Each structure stands twice: as structure tokens, then as C-alpha cells.
């Protein structure tokens, strides 16, 4: 959904009309429209319902059946073209109706007669869909799995009359109002849903039914289609009503794209102006410093691949809590921020700090400080490409030494001091204070309830919200009246969403704008120098961008974990893993259980000194997983088996010695299509005793973890036999949608020569696969042969790159895989080259943790922090916020452009030339140039000193050299394996 217009006038919001529609398609690659159903409503009263169809996609018999059905059920029947003209444009567009669907980008793309790439700042990187020649196209830009920007393009031409132009008025461009129920559901329920699960969750009058797709059109199938539209509308009504209860009247429901939208709507309702509006002259250099200190949540494994008994503890509403402790609401509502040098004071503060000082809330109010350190074996978050064979970046808390001074939050400096005992060398410190409070802040009655009144000028919004939520939850626990309990549950969930969405993410929102041509960009980072780069992808701050609040929030959250770790170590406890706001405290071997429980309580109790809430909820609480499944609330031994960051499982041991999963991660599994459903689950794995929604995984993922645990419990942790799981000997596939022009381009060869109706369209589904290691061995054989014949002097072909296999969609995965091809070359890839689920997941439980030492495939036990030295010459690269396109990378393999690389710091170009020259002599100039993505002559000119490359270009060269080196290393390893195999 989009706001209708950002061209100088306030959008009206949708009219009383709404158009809800759904499409059903063929089950083959192009997923062509067969038939659709729509409901046109005015103020929720149905005024017209109809069916539409593509005549070319139906047989004569099917068309007759359709006509017959429409007549019997008094439905309008239109062709696709008639539907787009008469209903979509003449009604919905002209009447500013709210256009509703579930998975709206897909349905809209089924109506298109052609498409192009979206243009401009807002829609660059998206699609422009032409639905009809005489009407404005629909533009769609994919933002995330559940959110897209959608609007009508401008009709073009001079549309503002002269008299208006004289007054500097501009005619409103009709952008339309689109609502994807999938997006709204994700925002309001804080979860991802199918139409089926959403209908069940919301308890709509109609529920989604099952149907067999790809068969001949029948009356039953048409009934199923109509029911889908009805369920979609009912879901919309329930969600819209729920949103209405939030009483965020300044933001219409049609503008809610995500939870973050709700956060922004909350601030807007209170009259809070964005920081960049109240302080537009804040120095860019300082913004660069602040952003260079920003890191996300800390997520680590410590006791890798060992079963340990743990107490799994979680901080109450971590981000809102640390915001409260630091008084960050004052920054959010201020007229701006001031800053001053605090170097000496900070040195004294850090030097004299004891753990007990952090138990005082007054200490936390002093943490709004950024510190420039000359790191020398100090413990800091370090962002780097830890994996040898990949340029993917991750963050690890490691011992850092750097010639270049680096900025961190004071909280991070304190973590280093707590965990090492050593005070880092502080070069400079800047203390930040909020200016006076903004005027025109308005009190609100949260959820329309005067009992939930919040005055942003005098209350800390987050404190009030979390306390209210606690009271509501307590009230619900005491209440026996079911409708009241439901209402209270809905209220506490709404409060949770508002708190989470308004305290962090929106303050570090950066949206990538993509341009057809590179644009000159000036950027800043920690050294406050202005640098330039030419980039096609440019990050643009979101409306409420306030990086100081964001970096102080995450820094303080990392401090909470650091304190927990320090306390645990002091008490002789260990810890198995941590994940942003939780830590699994581990019972050391030999410690009595009673002592373990007592010490855990001691650690948890320490945090109560800091608890800012009056609701009585604990700050560092034991999660429900630590207790028996019955209602006894008795603590029961909980175990964990962590593999790598965000990849772990928590379980109890049943009386039969078998694991009972309590919580598991789907990390590294979520992108795969399920090889089987609950109904085909193997009988040799016990039915989960805990609901899968509570465990957090699907049935097949549960079963995978069960086998991993079973192997570990039987002392064969490396050997997990997945062969017996149903479907695991089939080819493993990931499904995603062609959400960007770049992804759709992979199908250029497939689409070539086909009429538009038979091409893969934007947002059409595609499958991605992994290639088998044996394919690499075959290639290695070829390399070996070349080496044998040339005595190792021969020109090696390109280092082996396994094909990146994709296929067009088909409902039947076995059929889809037959059309598999390499997206880089277009060459067919035989299914034999593709990994099965078994092969793809054979090392799932061995996934290395490269951020630390001791984390290789079969390593287990405590990991050790690395010692990282950043050299002066090009040791630092400037990158954008790395969260861009993480979904795409997850599904389709690494995307080097997912991280925007701006340039490098420090060093001389001569030294760089030397580095590049060495690489060129090793790999050849053409290969280096090709790997870096530019011309051979560019590299030659640089080597000859005839050109000065942009820093960002040099950065690409360095990454290319690193990749070539690692591929050479990989090829050598594979080659050695192949030779070894030949010998034996």
C-alpha cells in the first residue's frame, strides 16, 4: 500500500468503495491467469460480484461452464480486458476505491499485458505493469517478504492548469489505494500468514477451503475461488477493525505496510516530528561517525555442538527497556541533539567503572556517548567476511587491534572492560544530550482507552507502554470471562507491536533507491572525511531516521548481554549461546543442579536493581521453556545443542531418553520447500509434545532437529542419517518470487520468443536449487587432466563455478526440476547435478561458526574469540547497512551487490596497484577484470598509473581478488580430493 501522493497535497485516503479480487492461474511456469473473482463494495455492502477470465486460457467447454455458473449465481461475467477497463479502472481507479487482495503483487501481475522496470526515486528497482493501454500503469516495488510499495503511475503530460501553476498549486496525481492483506496481517499480528492460517487465526465467518489446481474448471473450483475472495475480505475487515482499535487516526489503514508503519503512526499520532525535520542542519560528518558505531544485536554460540543443561533467560522487552534506562525518549521527542567533547570525563568513567555501577539506573543515563578508541586487543564487535569462501559479512565480538581509530558506543567500551578487565585506549569521546522537548506534542489514549493515557511530553512512552502491557497481561491471567480475555489478549499484543515497532527499527531505516545509471554520492564515516563514489544503489534514510537512538539502543542491549556473561562467569557458570536479548546460561560439568539453579537466580536477581517497571515483571526472566509442560510451573532440566549463531535447539529429555523439543530455529531451513507435511511425518519420530508454533518450526524441521539430537545423545554427533525422512531423497528446492527486474532477467532466455502470456512474469514463482559436490569433482577432473597434459603449466580454465540452478514454477516439483537451467549461462542443468534434501542438509548440524576459532565443521566445545588486526592500508571498507536483500541472498545464494560498497579507507594507491598487479600476474588481467565486473582496459590503465580509480572501484577489485584467491584455494582442494579419489 502507498500513500497516494507526495507531491505537495495531503492524500484523501480511499473512498467508501473497495475492490477485492483474486486470481487463479495455470500451474505451469508462466502461471497465466485462467479465472478471477471480484467483489465491489460500498461501505462494506456488496454491490457487485463477478468473475473474469482469459478467453485464451480456457477451453470452449470451460467457458460454457463459466457462463453457466455466472448465470446460476447471478454474477457478472467479464473477460480480463473488460474487467480491467470496466471494474479496475472505471470503478476502482476513478472512485479511489481501496484495492484489496492477498498477495497483491502476484494478483496484479496476472492482470498485466506487459511490464517494464519501475523508474524514479520511489519505484526504481521495481516493476511497472501495464494493465490496459488507455490507463496509467500500476507500479510495484518489493520491499520485503510481506511488503511492497504499490501505486498508479502518473498519467503524464501537463495536468495542472495555468491558474493553479501561478499559485504554485499542483494537481493531485491519483496514486490509488492498495492494500495487501498479507502485509497488513504481518503488521497487526506480528507474524507471517497464509490466507488459510490467517482466516483461522482471525476466526472469520468463512474459512479457506482446499481445491485441486491445474484441473479442468468446475463449479466446485469456482466456488473455491469465490470463497477465497470472501475470506480475504473478511480478514481485511477484522484486521482493519483491530487497527482501528489502535486509534492511530492520523494514519489510515491503507498506509500500514509493516510493523514499522505502526511505530511511525504512533509517533505521528503524538505529534512527534522526525529528527531530520527538527534538526536538518545536523552535520553529515557526525552522522557518519554515529553510523560507523552502529551494529545490530549480538548473536553468538559459545559451547558449540555440545549438549549442555541450560537456564534459558530473556530480557523483558529489551530494546524498549534499554531505551527507558538511557532516557532515549528524550532524544526522540527533542528539538534536536547537542554534542560536546567528553574525552577526559569518559576516560575517568571507564577506568573507574565497576560492575556494581551498572546496577544503578543513574549510570545508564550517562551512556549517550560515542567513543573513538585505538583498539589494542580489546573486545569489540567486528564486522567482516569471516568465511574464507564467501564475501558475506557477519559480526563477531572479537579481540580487535586497529591502527585506525574506530568509533563505538560507550556501552560497547564497557563490555570490553567488563569481559577483559582492560580499559581500551580512548582517543576521543562525544557526549550527546537532547535539546528542549518539541512543542505541540499531544497526549493519546492508547487503543482509545482513557485508562491507557500517555502524555509524550511528561511520560516516557516506552516505560508507560511496557507497564501497561504488563498490567493488561496480569489482568488477563486473573480473568475468567472469555470475551474479556480475548479483548485483553488483543490489547496486549497491540501494545507489544507498538512498543517494538516504535523504539528501534524506524530509527535506522535506510531504503535503497536503484538507478539505471550510477549517481555521484558523497558519503561519510568514522573519520569524518567526505568521500565520493558513483553508485547505482543509494541508501536513503527513512522518515524517522535517528541513528544516534538506534546505535545507543543496540549498544545498550549488547551491554546487557555483556553484563549477564560477566555475572555468569563470576559465579562460575558458563553460557551456551546468546541471541540479541536472550542468553542460555549453562551448567558446568560437575556442578550440582541445585547450585546451578541457585546461581542462575543470583545472576537474574542482579538485574532487578535495574528494573524500571512497577508492574512486578522480572527484567531477566526464565522463559517458559525452563518449566514443565503441565500447569505445575515446576522447573525442569532444559538442554540445548547450539551449532552456530541463530542455529540451536532447546529440549527436555523424556523418560525414554528421547528429546522433547521446546524451541528450535529454522535458520538455514526456512527457504526450503517442505519435503513433507504433517500428514506424511515418519512414524519413527514421536509426535511433538509441544505445538509446532510454540517450537517455532514446521514438522519436517522438527524431525530434522530430532535426528540431530538423537545422534548427539547417542554419541555420534557428526553422523546424522537423514535418508529415512520422507522426501529427503528428492531434489531440494527453494521457492521465491521474481520480485525484482534483476531476478526476472534470469528467465530472459526462457521467455525469449514466447508470447507475453506464456512468459514468466514479475512476481511469478521460481525455484532455486543447489548443485552437488560431485559436479564440482567432475570439473576438478577436467582441471586435473589439463594439469597432467601440460605438466601443470597449462592455462587453467575459469575456476570452477557450480551452476546456479533455477527453474520456472510448476506445481509438481518433479516436473519443475526438469526445466532447470543455469541462471548465469542459460545452459540446461540436469537434475542429477542437483542436491537432494539429504545432501543439502547433510552438514546442517555441522554448519561452521567462522566468527570464532574452533568453529570448523566437526569442531565442538567452547569457541575462542579471534584476534583481528586491521591494517592501515585498505583494512576498512565502507559499506551500506548490510540488511539489504538478505531474503534474496538467503534464497538464491550470495549476492555480491546486496551490500552496497562505498570505498576503502586509508592506504596509498601505489600499494593498491602493487596488490592488483600481483593478482593479475597470478590470475590474468582479464580474469581479474571480469571478476570485478569491469573492463580489461580499466585495469590496465590503473596498473599503468594512467587513471585513479574511485575508492569503491578499488574495493570491488580487492573483493574480486579475495574471491579468486579463495576459489583457487577451493579448486585446489577439490582437485586434490579428485586426485586422491583417483589414486584410491
Amino acid at each position, binding site marked *: 500500500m502507498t500513500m497516494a501522493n507526495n507531491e505537495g497535497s495531503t492524500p484523501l485516503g480511499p473512498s467508501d468503495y473497495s475492490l477485492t479480487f483474486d486470481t487463479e492461474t495455470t500451474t505451469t511456469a508462466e502461471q497465466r491467469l485462467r479465472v478471477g473473482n471480484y467483489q465491489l463494495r460500498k461501505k462494506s455492502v456488496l454491490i457487485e460480484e463477478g468473475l473474469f477470465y482469459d478467453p485464451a486460457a480456457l477451453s470452449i467447454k470451460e467457458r460454457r461452464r463459466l457462463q453457466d455458473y455466472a448465470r446460476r449465481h447471478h454474477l457478472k461475467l467479464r473477460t480480463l480486458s473488460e474487467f480491467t477497463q470496466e471494474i479496475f*479502472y472505471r470503478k476502482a481507479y476513478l472512485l479511489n476505491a481501496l484495492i484489496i487482495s492477498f498477495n497483491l503483487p502476484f494478483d496484479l501481475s496476472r492482470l498485466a499485458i506487459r511490464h517494464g522496470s519501475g523508474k524514479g526515486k520511489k519505484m526504481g528497482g521495481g516493476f511497472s505493469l501495464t494493465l490496459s493501454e488507455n490507463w496509467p500503469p500500476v507500479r510495484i516495488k518489493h520491499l520485503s517478504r510481506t511488503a511492497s510499495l504499490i501505486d498508479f503511475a502518473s498519467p503524464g503530460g501537463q495536468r495542472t492548469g495555468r491558474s493553479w501553476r501561478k499559485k504554485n498549486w499542483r494537481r493531485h496525481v491519483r496514486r490509488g489505494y492498495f492494500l495487501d492483506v498479507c502485509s497488513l496481517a504481518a503488521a497487526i499480528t506480528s507474524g507471517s500468514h497464509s490466507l488459510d492460517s490467517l482466516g483461522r487465526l482471525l476466526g472469520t465467518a468463512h474459512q479457506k477451503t482446499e481445491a485441486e489446481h491445474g484441473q479442468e474448471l468446475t463449479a466446485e473450483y469456482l466456488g473455491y475461488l469465490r470463497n477465497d475472495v470472501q475470506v480475504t475480505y473478511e480478514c481485511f475487515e477484522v484486521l482493519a477493525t483491530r487497527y482501528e482499535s489502535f486509534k492511530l487516526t492520523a494514519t489510515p489503514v491503507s498506509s500500514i505496510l509493516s510493523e514499522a508503519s505502526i511505530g511511525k503512526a504512533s509517533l505521528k499520532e503524538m505529534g512527534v516530528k522526525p529528527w531530520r525535520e527538527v534538526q536538518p542542519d545536523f552535520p553529515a560528518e557526525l552522522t557518519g561517525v554515529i553510523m560507523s558505531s552502529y551494529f545490530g544485536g549480538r548473536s553468538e554460540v559459545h559451547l558449540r555442538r555440545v549438549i549442555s543443561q541450560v537456564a534459558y533467560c530473556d530480557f523483558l522487552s529489551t530494546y524498549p527497556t534499554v531505551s527507558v534506562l538511557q532516557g532515549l525518549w528524550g532524544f526522540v521527542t527533542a528539538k534536536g541533539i547537542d554534542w560536546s567533547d567528553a574525552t577526559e570525563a569518559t576516560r575517568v568513567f571507564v577506568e573507574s567503572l565497576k560492575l556494581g555501577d551498572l546496577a544503578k539506573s543513574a549510570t545508564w543515563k550517562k551512556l549517550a556517548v560515542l567513543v573513538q578508541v585505538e583498539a589494542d586487543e580489546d573486545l569489540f564487535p567486528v564486522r567482516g567476511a569471516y568465511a574464507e569462501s564467501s564475501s558475506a559479512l557477519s559480526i563477531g565480538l572479537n579481540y580487535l587491534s586497529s591502527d585506525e581509530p574506530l568509533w563505538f558506543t560507550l556501552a560497547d567500551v564497557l563490555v570490553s572492560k567488563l569481559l577483559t578487565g582492560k580499559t581500551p585506549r580512548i582517543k576521543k569521546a562525544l557526549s550527546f544530550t537532547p535539546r528542549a522537548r518539541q512543542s505541540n506534542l499531544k497526549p493519546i489514549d492508547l487503543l482509545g482507552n482513557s485508562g491507557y493515557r500517555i502524555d509524550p511530553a511528561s511520560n516516557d512512552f516506552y516505560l508507560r507502554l511496557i507497564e501497561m502491557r504488563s498490567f493488561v497481561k496480569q489482568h488477563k491471567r486473573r480473568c475468567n470471562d472469555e470475551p474479556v480475555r480475548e479483548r485483553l489478549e488483543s490489547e496486549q499484543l497491540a501494545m507489544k507491536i507498538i512498543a517494538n515497532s516504535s523504539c528501534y527499527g524506524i530509527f535506522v531505516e535506510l531504503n535503497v533507491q536503484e538507478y539505471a545509471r550510477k549517481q555521484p554520492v558523497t558519503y561519510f564515516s568514522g573519520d569524518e572525511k567526505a568521500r565520493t563514489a558513483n553508485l547505482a544503489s543509494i541508501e536513503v534514510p527513512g522518515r524517522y531516521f535517528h541513528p544516534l537512538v538506534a546505535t545507543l539502543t543496540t549498544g545498550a542491549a549488547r551491554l546487557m548481554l555483556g553484563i549477564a556473561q560477566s555475572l555468569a562467569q563470576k559465579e562460575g557458570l558458563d553460557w551456551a549461546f546468546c541471541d540479541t536479548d536472550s542468553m542460555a546460561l549453562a551448567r558446568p560439568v560437575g556442578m550440582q543442579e541445585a547450585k546451578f539453579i541457585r546461581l542462575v537466580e543470583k545472576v537474574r536477581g542482579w538485574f532487578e536493581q535495574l528494573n524500571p517497571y512497577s508492574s512486578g515483571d522480572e527484567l531477566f526472566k526464565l522463559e517458559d521453556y525452563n518449566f514443565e509442560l503441565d500447569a505445575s510451573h515446576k522447573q525442569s532440566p532444559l538442554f540445548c545443542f547450539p551449532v552456530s549463531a541463530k542455529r540451536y535447539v532447546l529440549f527436555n529429555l523424556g523418560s525414554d531418553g528421547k528429546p522433547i523439543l521446546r524451541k528450535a530455529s529454522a535458520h538455514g531451513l526456512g527457504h526450503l520447500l517442505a519435503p513433507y507435511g504433517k500428514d506424511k511425518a515418519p512414524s519413527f519420530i514421536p509426535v511433538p509434545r509441544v505445538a509446532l508454533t510454540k517450537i517455532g518450526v514446521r514438522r519436517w524441521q522438527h524431525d530434522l532437529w530430532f535426528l540431530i539430537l538423537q545422534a548427539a545423545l547417542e554419541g555420534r554427533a557428526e553422523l546424522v542419517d537423514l535418508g529415512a525422512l520422507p522426501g529427503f531423497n528428492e531434489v531440494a528446492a527453494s521457492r521465491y518470487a521474481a520480485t525484482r527486474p534483476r531476478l526476472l532477467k534470469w528467465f530472459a532466455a526462457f521467455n525469449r520468443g514466447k508470447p507475453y502470456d506464456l512468459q514468466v512474469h514479475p512476481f511469478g514463482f521460481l525455484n532455486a536449487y543447489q548443485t552437488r559436490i560431485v559436479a564440482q569433482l567432475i570439473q576438478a577432473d577436467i582441471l586435473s587432466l589439463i594439469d597432467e597434459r601440460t605438466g601443470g603449466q597449462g592455462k587453467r580454465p575459469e575456476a570452477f563455478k557450480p551452476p546456479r540452478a533455477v527453474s520456472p514454477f510448476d506445481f509438481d516439483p518433479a516436473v519443475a526440476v526438469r526445466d532447470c537451467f543455469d541462471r548465469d549461462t542459460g545452459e540446461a542443468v540436469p537434475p542429477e547435478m542437483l542436491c537432494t534434501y539429504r545432501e543439502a542438509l547433510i552438514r546442517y548440524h555441522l554448519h561452521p561458526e567462522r566468527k570464532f576459532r574452533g568453529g570448523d565443521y566437526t569442531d565442538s566445545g567452547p569457541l575462542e574469540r579471534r584476534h583481528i588486526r586491521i591494517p592501515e592500508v585498505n583494512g576498512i571498507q565502507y559499506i551500506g547497512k548490510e540488511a539489504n536483500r538478505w531474503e534474496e541472498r538467503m534464497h538464491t545464494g550470495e549476492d555480491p551487490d546486496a551490500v552496497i560498497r562505498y570505498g576503502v579507507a586509508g592506504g596509498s594507491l601505489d600499494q593498491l596497484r602493487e596488490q592488483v598487479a600481483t593478482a593479475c600476474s597470478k590470475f590474468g588481467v582479464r580474469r581479474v577484470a571480469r571478476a570485478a565486473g569491469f573492463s580489461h582496459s580499466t585495469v590496465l590503465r590503473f596498473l599503468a598509473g594512467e587513471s585513479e580509480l574511485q575508492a569503491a572501484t578499488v574495493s570491488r577489485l580487492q573483493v574480486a581478488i579475495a574471491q579468486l584467491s579463495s576459489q583457487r584455494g577451493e579448486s585446489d582442494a577439490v582437485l586434490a580430493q579428485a586426485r586422491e579419489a583417483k589414486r584410491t
Partner: protein
Amino acid sequence: MQNESQPSNNEARAEAAFERLGTRRPKCSVPGCNESDWRALTGKHPHILCYEHMCAEQGRSTVEQQHTLGRKIDPDMEVTMAGNDHRIMDSYKDQWPKETRENPDGSPALLAAAYLRVPFDWLIMIAKRYLEPVFLWLEALDSLFCEKLGRRWWVGLGLPDIYSRRVEQ
């Protein structure tokens, strides 16, 4: 795009007007002026003026001559009316079928149709603009009297009967 500037029905035209005016509840911003018909409003929220107030501001007459049947059919037949009403009547006329509005061949049937459409539009306009507000006002007055004086507030006030509903036996 031709389709956007020529919406095919009244609601679409209203919607286009609301966008032009910048609000779905437009009203003349001059205190005391209750003009809220989108057809008679100009400008952009919050600086909306009804046509008559805009004319007054520009020093022009607020009373105009309307071509009753339209210039193309009879350029001489005119009637004096208030500016706002003129805008509304012209808007109604825009919704006549093009053939009736222009009648290039002088069809007597279409001319007769136009003659009938004129009083028809007048009746609608008078009803909407002059009668409806009155009965709405009367109903609001009754509610107020009921609240202040009770449900049978008229009893004992000595008011003459307006209508007698009872048939005399």
C-alpha cells in the same frame, strides 16, 4: 490520459472534485457560508471558496445568466440565477447524453427531451438545495424540542394543525 479527465459517472466526477479540492468534506471557508456542494466550490483545502464568494473576491457579480438549454441548442434562452446554482445546473447538464446536449441535427425529439430535462434538473436542484435542508432542519428541531420539552412537546402550545391525519368519521 483522456479517461481520467472524463469520468463516466457522477461519483467519479465527485471523487475527481474531492481530489481537486483536497478534501472529501469540502465547504466554503467563508464564515457563515454553508455551501458544500462540490460542484459549486473552488480552490484547495483549506482555502476553499464557493463560486459566489470567489466572484465577490474578484469584484464580479455573483448572479449570472444561465443558458437554460445550453448555447448549442438555444443561445438566446437565458435565466438569471445565483452563481453557485449556475455551476450546479451546468454540472447536471454535463451529464445529459451528448446527443441531447448538442443535438447537431436539430432532432425535435431530442429538443423535447432537453426541454423536459431542464425542469427535471431544476426540481432536483431545488429539492436537494432548498427543500432538503429545510426538512432536515425541522427534524433536528423536533429532536431538540423532544429533548427539552418532552415527546409531545406541541401539546398545550396552541399551535394550529398543519395536517390532520385523522379521517373525520
